[in-house]
């Protein structure tokens, strides 16, 4: 690679060499055809559908037959008051989620990493992973049974102690706490996997050296483990920031109710209501496209910042 870029070679020579390289490894490139075909077929081809954001789309005329109307859908979108509410809610829920849910798996992984009894560690990990496999529909049911005003487990305890029941699900700020807490419960255990994997890659010599220097557990965590997984943390953070405009559909939809719509109506639920339920497909697609653009913006920004701070980034 380095040699081919050496200044002594002329440009055609480099091209020839590259072509020769492809020819030499043609078998490997052939193997690559399948995955590339997959991405083109299932990731890029469907993107032509995004065109309906610029159309007055009719489901019967299809993408090719519908009338082109330029940015009219976006204009209408930005005029809707609801648009700003759902964007604000999406950013707010995701940002708060980032603050409380992002550190959780790191802390958990640090704790798990310190466990020395193998069977206990294994069991604890398995139990922590489990919530990840429960669908949001079921979690929604569990939350209702736990936190309802009338007959919810938690409020039964609260009222039997002589206090007023707490409107966990019917008052928007309480609901927010439940929403965030459920997120941690569901995802923290699963999130530890990647950090634990990163921790196994840390050179054991460092810990031994620290032992010799008389460092305690906390010191070792702070000065060896955490810096050791810093690149992983940064990459995870960038990916999370890229998702700050995208929000899963199930969690807000299942956990939300009429009383907390001020917070629970987010982009995904709005797209569902406007797009599938009222058949305003163009408007919903415009919303989705806008969301993707903002998401891209966040990824680029955070990646650039990460590079400024001397980290690797994701490209």
């Amino acid at each position, binding site marked *: 690679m380095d040699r081919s870029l050496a200044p002594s070679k002329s440009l055609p020579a480099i091209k020839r060499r590259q072509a020769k390289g492809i020819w030499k490894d043609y078998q490997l490139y052939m193997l690559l055809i399948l995955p590339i075909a997959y991405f083109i077929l299932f990731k890029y081809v469907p993107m032509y559908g995004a065109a309906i954001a610029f159309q007055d789309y009719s489901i019967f005329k299809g993408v090719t037959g519908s009338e082109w109307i330029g940015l009219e859908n976006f204009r209408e979108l930005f005029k809707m008051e609801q648009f700003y509410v759902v964007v604000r809610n999406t950013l707010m829920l995701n940002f708060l989620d980032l603050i409380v849910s992002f550190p959780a798996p790191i802390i958990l992984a640090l704790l798990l990493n310190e466990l020395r009894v193998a069977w206990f560690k294994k069991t604890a990990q398995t139990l922590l992973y489990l919530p990840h496999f429960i669908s949001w529909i079921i979690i929604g049911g569990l939350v209702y049974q736990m936190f309802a005003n009338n007959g919810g487990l938690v409020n039964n305890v609260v009222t039997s102690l002589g206090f007023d029941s707490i409107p966990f699900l*019917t008052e928007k700020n309480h609901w927010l706490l439940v929403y965030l807490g459920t997120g941690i419960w569901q995802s923290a255990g699963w999130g530890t996997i990647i950090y634990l994997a990163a921790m196994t890659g840390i050179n054991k010599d460092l810990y031994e050296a620290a032992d010799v220097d008389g460092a305690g557990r906390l010191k070792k965590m702070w000065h060896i483990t955490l810096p050791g997984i810093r690149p992983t943390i940064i990459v995870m953070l960038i990916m999370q920031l890229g998702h700050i405009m995208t929000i899963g559909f199930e969690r807000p939809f299942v956990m939300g*109710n009429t009383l907390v719509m001020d917070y629970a109506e987010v982009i995904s639920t709005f797209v569902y209501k406007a797009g*599938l339920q009222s058949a305003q*497909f163009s408007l919903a697609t415009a919303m989705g496209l806008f969301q993707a653009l903002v998401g891209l913006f966040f990824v680029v920004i955070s990646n650039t910042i990460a590079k400024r701070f001397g980290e690797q980034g994701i490209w």
Partner: protein
Amino acid sequence: MHAKQRKWFVTSAAVVLLASVLSACGNSNDNNSTNTSDASTSEGAANTNKEKVTLKVEVFDRGNAPAGAGPVTDNFWTQWIQTNFGDPNNIKLEFVPVPRNQEVDKLNVLMATGDAPDLVFTYDMNTIYNYVKDDGLIDLTSLIENAPNLKKFLGDEVLNYGVFNDKQYTIPAKRPLQYTQSTYIRKDWLDKLELPVPTTTEQFYETMKAFKEKDPGQTGGKVIPYDFSSLDNTSITSPFVLVNSFVNKMSEEEFYSLTSSSYIPEITKPGYKDGVQYLNKFYQEGLINPDFALDKDGKQFESDVANGYVGAFTALAAHPNLMAPGKVFDTLKQNVPGAEYIAIDPFTDEEGKTPKSIYDPIGMHIMIPKTSKHAAEAIKYLDWMSQSDVLFTLQNGMEGQHYTLENGFPKAITTDEAKKTFYNNTDIAIIANGKDFGSIEKDIEATSYQFPGYEEIAKQSIQNALKDGYSMPRFDRPIESEIKYGTTLKAKAYEIVVKSILAKPDQFNKIFDDGVKEYLKLGGQAIQDERLAAYQEMKK
């Protein structure tokens, strides 16, 4: 050696690739050939072509198939239809399941992919307007001329509901009984407290207070005197009969412009606010379920009723979820011996009447998508179904196996064995929404026989639900702004009502009034204006 291995690996990969490409080609060839043959059959329908036509028919899937019964797509009745209609006409029927509570979403997807069944249907008017506007439906005006049984069964009034822009775009199902909701109350609780059956709103309130204070069911404080579930759902219960009874008399013009279709709460009608405030009073005094907004599928409501916690509720009359064998009322009887509900009609207006909105004389709209190549067969199927003996069998089953005749009316047999071959027949007999025996009295009686053990309450609930009923005003053209803002406004109106019911008394006015202002701004005003214009145009 190494190179050899690699070569072998690559060759095998290439073979796999090639094989998959070939098989894909083969499949598409197969598809093409069947398609062309289908088309040729439908063109020459009279020909005794050996090729079968596949007719795809939408069917609701309510996820309620009993153990041992087949799914909605393949069961006793789909086979019966195949034998009695399909085979003689050289048609292969295929039933396409659509989840009941996502029917509109699923239908839109089916229509957009061009893969919709030949017969589709929906209750949602906005969806129908959209399809008509986008020219996605086959004009059936001339086709139904070939369907004498269908025309005779539905009649002109019903068929007229399916005419848009002077063309017959949909075939509305006939709804012989237009009832919606009735109120139910625990008879054994009334007896225990020696209270009369409430006949006015005021009496109803007093009764609910007594239920709360004296807890006649000994629920240990779990009593819910008046229960309903979240408003933004498809469940069977709501408090809107109570709320609507507070609405004042209006001029016809006001009635046309302030009403909304597609079940948007009509919060701008004069007096509506008082009704919501009355429910707020209920909430303050602990007479309703404070968690109603969380019960999004109505299951909590059903379980509370079945557990004997609920004093009264307003729900669809004569509904299977309550009265069918093994459902809520049966479970209640097991849980609380002696528990019994009766149907009442207590919510009186300023004139002492008990007004409530009822259905149009039609059920869902049946449509044939433009993409369908089998419109003729689809109409033939509906025509076949309209014959009185066929419809009777589809609605009631086989004599001796699914029903016995009592006073000339079919009475359902409710053994587990019978249920295995009879559970979704109302969803199969799509052209009728209820049984038609010629007069309202007979229809009510016949409907009540569907619920053995609950004939009386079924009958009474239907009578209550029809009393002083009014149906929605009808325009001869769709209200465009309602199509556009409908979904958003519906969610907003529900939010306003729910928040007002659960408001602190001193904040009630502010929450409701601000809500109405916002509602009007979000498109409510536009709808009213357009409705008013359409009304004046129509009266010219």
